């Protein structure tokens, strides 16, 4: 689905990614773990074309998307949910969802039914300004908006940040459900091990802009490894 090879990028002369290699299969959920500031968010932004790639390649289903502008990457089939959710506060819930329809390959302008079935609150609060939602509701809206574009690959940046535990579980099982039912692959940057345990098949650990360790989600109870790579 997504193949990243020797990817380097950064801001100006500051290099953040130092050659990332990643292979994400179809219907696979991979979590990226790592301490703050190692480049996890930058990896997602580089895949999305928000941060320019300096060298290396990114391929989506065999199509080279390395040099495409952000809007074309979105249309190629990647849905992106940025850190801090990135919903549009000044638009209503429904308008936020409508904004997500643009990159649909079928050009439909209907918000998919299954989204409202999964998160009925979004239908209930359809006309309400998105800025007035709670943190968990905003996250549901942000993920739903990305799904409105019918993506093949979903990039999630810290979906658990600042939301209550039961919503974390809900989002974790929803990601799993998406993969099973809608043939979506998910790349998720996350610190919350519970969410990773619920949603991901495997994980990769990032240190200083490189992916240095990988494993199956079941190996995440290995205290020693967690200590080595993740504890501050």
């Amino acid at each position, binding site marked *: 689905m997504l193949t990243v090879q020797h990817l380097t990028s950064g801001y100006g002369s500051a290099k953040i990614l130092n050659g990332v290699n990643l292979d994400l299969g179809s219907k696979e959920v991979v979590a990226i773990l790592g301490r703050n500031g190692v480049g996890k968010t930058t990896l997602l932004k580089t895949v*999305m074309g928000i941060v320019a790639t300096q060298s290396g390649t990114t391929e989506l289903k065999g199509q080279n998307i390395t040099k495409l502008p952000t*809007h074309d990457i979105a249309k190629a089939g990647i849905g992106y949910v940025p850190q801090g959710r990135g919903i549009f506060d000044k*638009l209503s819930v429904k308008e936020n969802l409508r*904004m997500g329809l643009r990159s649909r390959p079928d050009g439909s302008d209907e918000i998919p039914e299954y989204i409202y079935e999964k998160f009925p609150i979004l239908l209930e609060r359809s006309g309400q*300004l998105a800025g007035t939602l709670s943190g968990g509701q905003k996250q549901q809206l942000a993920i739903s908006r990305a799904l409105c574009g019918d993506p093949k690959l979903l990039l999630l940046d810290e979906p658990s940040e600042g939301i209550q535990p039961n919503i974390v579980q809900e989002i974790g099982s929803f990601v799993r459900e998406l993969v099973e039912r809608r043939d979506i692959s998910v790349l998720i940057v996350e610190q919350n091990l519970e969410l990773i345990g619920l949603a991901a098949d495997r994980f990769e650990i990032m240190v200083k802009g490189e992916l240095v360790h990988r494993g199956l989600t079941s190996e995440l109870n290995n205290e020693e490894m967690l200590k080595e790579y993740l504890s501050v």
Partner: protein
Amino acid sequence: MTTTILNTTPGQITRKQKLGPASIIAIGIILALLILPAFVQGYTLTSYRDVLLFALFALSLDLFWGKTGILSFGHATFFGLGAYGMAIMSIHFSIDPAIVSLVGLLAGVGMAALVALIVGYFILYGGVRGAYFTIVTLALTLIANHVAVGWPSVTGGDSGLIGVPPFSILGWSFADPISSYYLALIVLGACLLSSMWVMSGRLGLILTAIQDDEIKVQTLGYKTPLLLLMTFAASAAMAALAGGLYAAGNGFVAPDMIALLLSTEVIIWVAVGGSGTLVGAVIGTAIVWWLQQKISSINASAWPIVIGTFFILLVLVFPKGPAAFVLDKVKKLRRDKEDDR
């Protein structure tokens, strides 16, 4: 803040729907202006006509500034291009009188749209936003003004060009005050209602989202620079339309129609009405014009001081415009009262 978030119930805070208060106000204003010539005639009516054209100019700025959040400090460039296009075509070329006004108007509007597309392409696609965009457009007015003053063989230099014929089309002339007033009103009404209609749809939605965060809009698959460029060009064309009709209405052009002062004034008209509302630009223009009449009749030199002071206040105290400033204060007062209870 937290209390208001927790207390929201479905539908409590909603965005205005298609035929909201703004549309009703707009239609009301247009209807009221339709019967104005029953009460006002002659020269006074022609000054009302000019206010309508300035309101159209203000509307054009609000279409870009109010909807994208990016301030153009160079809108007089486009108004001036419209005015000069009309004047140069009708004075320097011997065009069939039946179509000269139309050719002049198209030339002015076309030039303005072209300049907006070219300049806008380089700065908007180059990622220039915010204050830098404002400065570039400000420089554009200065350049345009220099050209207008420094090219007397074409533009008439400092004294401008006199003898622009009244607007006419295929023998229909809009020379007398009443018909030229209605021409201005119809053009303003059509532009106002169509702008409001377009902005109530998907484009308005996307532009509001761009104000929030342009990158995030791109990640949803939108070519944001293209949308901004198209809005900028449409706004410039509308400004030129106002300028062209103004030149035809008054029979002359002068360099102060393409000058920094006019760029500043139009910002104030929009700000007074509240930017982003479209109909507010029309109301703001009328209010400022009325104030100008009152203050200038007391002391002719007082007006520049008043408008200058207002501009400083606008930047420092109420960047969203006086109307929004007062509304915010009222909201805050109400909230404080609730907190006390």
